[in-house]
């Protein structure tokens, strides 16, 4: 079932019983370190009268306080770093879309583990020393670029650090350097494919074979679309800077969930409303405790990502738990006329229609105290018809499917091609014009 090599056979095939022993001993250590070196977390433990020396089983985890993005923001700049700065060799920072930045520190050992984890992921996709990988994730404070970069170098592949932007040049590089692996955000991959098509690039001459995509939620339909437009097999990579960066979890060839490197990260799924731990298989917010991280350890960090956990041994042989691909986040859930809607649901519907381009925008307004949702899509030039009834039919079909999927009436607006801004990084798809004060 597995045709690609294991990067770290010992940990990737470790029986659960043994894995749990390692996890527990690492958890004890990280808790004690957090208690002594992270004042913000020590306060939380003391408030709840928890003695970290009392933790003696993995099930104790559910009694420990959470760490939130807000905690890390308040700890800005160095309050979340558990090591003296002289031991920190790098920092990354994520600003998010709202509020202050968070700073995450890495020791030498952290950078090494991260390179190992990213190599594990790349190896699972089938990347090896022969490959030439174009890293078109942004380099800089964002972890995407450097994370994949170090992993690929560790693996022995040839790295082309293209970073994001200048799409025509990116395509030129892909052709000239005979790139075999492309790593970027899925929305950038689509954009790149579109620019290539406009410039009549013939992919038959390219050596491209693998796509490594992450840093934003993307649907199965989007994967199919990318694989149709580019000559690649597209794989999902998961990670977030607060936990380490790309490489926390990765897909294997079966593409049935992402294997979490549990020797480094302890995952949980919780109910985002109550904070209660949910049993395996149930969907909820993904929470991580770092087990090995020195620079910025986090205990029960709430990712905001919606997923579920599957502990069955995978067809690929790995014993590492699989998390369901993240299609949505707790904070991008929209409440429209009292109905919970995830943009990813809308994306799935749009991508199932051939007559529209894979770009969309959701505009929320409020008229007479009633939420209105308009889904804007671009008419695909090749499907455009001179007949009004064909276009109206398309619009109606999309509206009906949205209604069935979301349980909500949406207005679909057909736009001219290229009306929606193409993104080179994470894309902005929601425009909420509802006045905030009216909501409460």
């Amino acid at each position, binding site marked *: 079932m597995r045709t690609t090599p294991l990067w770290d056979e010992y940990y990737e095939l470790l029986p659960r019983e043994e894995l749990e022993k390692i996890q527990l001993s690492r958890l004890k250590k990280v808790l004690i370190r957090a208690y002594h070196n992270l004042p913000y977390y020590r306060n939380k433990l003391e408030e709840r009268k928890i003695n970290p020396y009392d933790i003696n089983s993995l099930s104790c985890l559910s009694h420990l306080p959470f760490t939130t993005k807000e905690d890390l923001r308040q700890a800005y700049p160095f309050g979340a770093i558990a090591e003296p700065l002289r031991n920190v060799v790098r920092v990354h920072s994520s600003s998010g879309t709202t509020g202050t930045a968070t700073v995450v520190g890495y020791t030498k050992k952290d950078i090494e583990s991260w390179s190992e984890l990213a190599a594990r992921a790349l190896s699972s996709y089938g990347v090896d020393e022969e490959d030439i990988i174009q890293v078109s994730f942004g380099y800089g404070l964002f972890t995407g670029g450097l994370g994949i970069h170090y992993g690929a170098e560790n693996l022995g592949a040839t790295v082309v650090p293209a970073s994001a932007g200048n799409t025509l040049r990116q395509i030129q590089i892909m052709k000239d350097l005979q790139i075999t692996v492309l790593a970027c955000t899925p929305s950038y991959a689509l954009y790149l494919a579109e620019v290539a098509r406009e410039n009549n690039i013939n992919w038959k001459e390219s050596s491209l074979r693998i796509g490594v995509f992450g840093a934003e939620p993307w649907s199965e339909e989007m994967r199919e679309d990318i694989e149709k437009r580019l000559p690649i097999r597209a794989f999902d990579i998961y990670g977030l800077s607060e936990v380490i960066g790309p490489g926390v979890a990765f897909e294997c060839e079966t593409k049935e969930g992402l294997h979490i490197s549990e020797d480094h990260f302890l995952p949980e799924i919780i109910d985002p409303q109550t904070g209660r731990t949910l049993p395996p298989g149930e969907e909820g917010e993904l929470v991580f405790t770092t087990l090995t991280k020195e620079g910025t350890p986090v205990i029960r960090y709430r990712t905001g990502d919606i997923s579920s956990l599957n502990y069955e041994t995978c067809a690929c042989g790995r014993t590492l738990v699989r998390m369901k691909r993240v299609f949505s986040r707790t904070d991008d859930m929209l409440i429209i006329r009292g109905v919970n809607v995830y943009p990813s649901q809308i994306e799935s519907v749009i991508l199932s229609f051939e007559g529209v381009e894979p770009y969309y925008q959701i505009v929320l307004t409020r008229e007479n105290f009633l939420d209105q949702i308009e889904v804007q899509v671009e*008419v*695909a*030039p090749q499907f*455009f*018809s*001179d*007949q*009004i009834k064909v*276009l*109206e039919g398309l*619009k109606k079909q999309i509206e009906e499917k949205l209604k069935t999927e979301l349980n909500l009436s949406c207005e679909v*607006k*057909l*736009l*001219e*091609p*290229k*009306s929606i801004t193409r993104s080179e990084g994470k894309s902005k798809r929601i425009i909420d014009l509802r006045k905030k004060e009216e909501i409460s």
Partner: protein
Amino acid sequence: MKQISVFLENRPGSLYEVLYKLKEEGINLRALSLADTAEFGVLRFIAENPEEIVEKLKKENFAATLTEVLAVGIEDRPGGLAEVVGILTHQNISIEYLYAFVSPQGERAYVVLRVEKLAEAEKILRENHIPILDKLTI
């Protein structure tokens, strides 16, 4: 004959953008119709070198397409159009849409017809001595 159709978004200026582009390219419109709904519109027109025009429009990010239509000449008198429509209706050929225009000389009017069974419609109209044009040179 080939007709060019262009998708128009429902917002101010979308028609002007197409027309301005056509003007820039020095394209002379022989016949034109604008169909619109509350949500969007379709501009349809006849001009010379339609293939070239569609390519140019696509390059400028317009959704444009070519459609085979029939352009027929009718006598510019009451009932002239009814006669043509009648012939097609009798043969169960449905008309998707049509638009008419009068030549400057004023003797003849022309109708652009979009029908589903184009070859059949053409044959029947010819049999009924309705002049069919390959080109609009007015």
